[in-house]
């Protein structure tokens, strides 16, 4: 088990290096670093000073080392628009994005797995067919369009929920969260549904096919032969068997949820990292863009690592075999 973790860690470090190289090349070699990293409104003296400080007049490989050193020490430049360190700006916005992503994931899992189990148990029923058709729509319709429709129907048309923004936040362990107040939840509902839809559809389909396959297995017949209730057969025997691929997908998809939060945050004006990056791209606040790219790469590598570890924890066959071997 330890060997697995170490191996994955080494792979992750390799990926991090590669991605940092890619971002560096994109910014310093392809783009014009002067434009990207130095505020275009600075005067000549400032520009010259910054060039020297950033080492932009040095050979490329030295620049890469400086870039790495700065990145590792947390210095990724200052935002042009907000004039505070880019990394600080992003970290300020991260809790909002994480809260939205977690809410969406929870929604998708809480609805997706039961609906998928039902659709797998009775695949020919009209309710199952309805669920499956809904799931096709759920992952083929573009997220932004669904968000617009949600706003049009629930916010503008019916007026039940707010159309944008994050509600009032309360502090939980020093981090501002909005799900602790009713007003905060009201603002969270539509964006969470919007973000959850894709993953919900995916989970429904995955759970359904896994359930259909599992129900054909002999252990289900044996469980029924023991006289176990259908609830236990489905909820314990079948569920535990299909959990491994499902959890893997949930984990891997969490990264894509954070990525798609970019769209949802833009539509609902949710003040998270996603909205920040879009705004920054539109106003050419490049240090923020660079910082965002690096942070998101780190985040993804960590997520993939966590999923790998969780996978080996969940499947007893993998865990024990690795311990033996």
């Amino acid at each position, binding site marked *: 088990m330890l060997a697995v973790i170490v191996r994955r860690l080494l792979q992750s470090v390799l990926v991090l290096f590669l991605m940092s190289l890619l971002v560096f090349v994109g910014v310093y070699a392809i783009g014009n670093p002067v434009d990207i990293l130095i505020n275009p409104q600075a005067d000549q003296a400032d520009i010259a000073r910054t060039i020297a400080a950033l080492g932009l007049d040095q050979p490329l490989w030295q620049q890469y080392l400086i870039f790495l050193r700065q990145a590792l020490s947390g210095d990724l430049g200052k935002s042009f628009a907000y004039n505070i360190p880019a990394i600080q700006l992003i970290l300020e916005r991260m809790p909002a994005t994480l809260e939205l992503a977690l809410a969406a994931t929870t929604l998708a899992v809480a609805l997706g797995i039961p609906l998928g189990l039902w659709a797998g148990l009775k695949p020919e029923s009209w309710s199952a067919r309805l669920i499956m058709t809904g799931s096709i729509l759920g992952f083929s319709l573009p997220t932004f369009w669904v968000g617009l429709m949600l706003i049009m129907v629930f916010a503008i048309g019916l007026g039940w929920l707010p159309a944008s923004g994050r509600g009032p936040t309360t502090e939980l362990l020093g981090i501002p969260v909005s799900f602790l107040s009713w007003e905060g939840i009201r603002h969270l509902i539509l964006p969470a549904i919007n973000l959850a839809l894709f993953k919900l559809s995916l989970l429904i389909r995955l759970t359904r096919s896994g359930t259909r396959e599992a129900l054909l*297995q*002999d*252990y289900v*017949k*044996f*469980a*029924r*032969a*023991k*006289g*176990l*209730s259908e609830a*236990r057969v489905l909820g*314990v*025997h079948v569920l*535990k*068997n299909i959990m*491994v691929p499902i959890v893997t997908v949930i984990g891997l998809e969490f990264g894509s949820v954070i990525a798609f939060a970019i769209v949802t945050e833009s539509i609902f004006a949710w003040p998270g990292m996603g909205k920040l990056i879009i705004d920054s791209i539109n106003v050419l606040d490049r240090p923020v863009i660079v910082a965002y790219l690096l942070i998101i790469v780190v985040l993804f590598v960590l997520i993939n690592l966590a999923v790998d570890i969780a996978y080996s924890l969940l*499947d*007893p*066959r993998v865990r*024990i075999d690795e311990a033996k071997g």
Partner: protein
Amino acid sequence: MSEPTLAVENLRTHFFTRQGVVKAVEDVSFCVAPGTILGLVGESGSGKSMTGYSIMDLVDPPGRVVAGRIRLRGQDLRALTPKQMRDIRGNRIAMIFQDPMMTLNPVLRVDTQMVEAIRAHADTGRTAALARARDALARVGIPAPQERLSAYPHQLSGGMRQRVCIAIALLNRPDLIIADEPTTALDVTIQGQILFEMQKLVRDSGAALIWITHDLSVIAGMADEICVMYAGHIVEHGSVDAVLDAPLHPYTRGLIDSVPGRSRKGAPLKQIPGMTPSLLELGPGCAFRERCAYADAACRHDPALSAPVAGRQVRCFHPLLQRTAT
């Protein structure tokens, strides 16, 4: 005669597929007395496993039991509600399946799978249930039962897994055990051990046992009565000694002859010519007639069960009476 543990009358189980109706079990009747072992013999596709599932009400769609009576110690099983049938399964009738690797859930521990079988039918506490499970494992000859309890199925050998399944079947002291080819997937040496232990357990507990297999030699060693099935029908029924010494149905004769041990060394192995018919294309008449040396025009009609000799039944127009011993 005391009431039989199981009385099956005219059981019919059909599968309603898109290509047509498959009559997997057709007009099957037999009884099993307490403390006795009935062997249900046939090739794959003969309907023997499906008979077992029909008794347990475990037939999956598109199949279902369409006719017949199944009585467990007088109680009509087909008249029960699903919940009542669930109370009976695993409690008064237990089933053992063929491949223990597939029947034990690979992601659940052995103790979980045993305790749930106990607690589905009685309000037993977890400690008490674990104790019963441990005793059951010891009874089927598993060494160090405590460790086995916390193991996962794939950590046990094939023979041990099957013993666990047998232990689970015996947990609630059922009246009837249906064993569907439980030793087919095991080594021959383990097979012998398990056969012996099953026989002993059945005699000791007074339960009735239906042993489903395609292997005649297994039946010869342990069963009291034998039912031979072919294409969903019972073609011969009688005591094991009588049937194996003097079979009445040509198919039974063919089965016995094809057991390698019975031919002389160097002589060519006997085979039943032809192949089992597809149950989808069965027309009227005896299903065996394409492969039978004695078939004639009469066999184009459906043969009924007859009793040409006392205590025996056969479904054939030309039973092999010449070879019958008294």
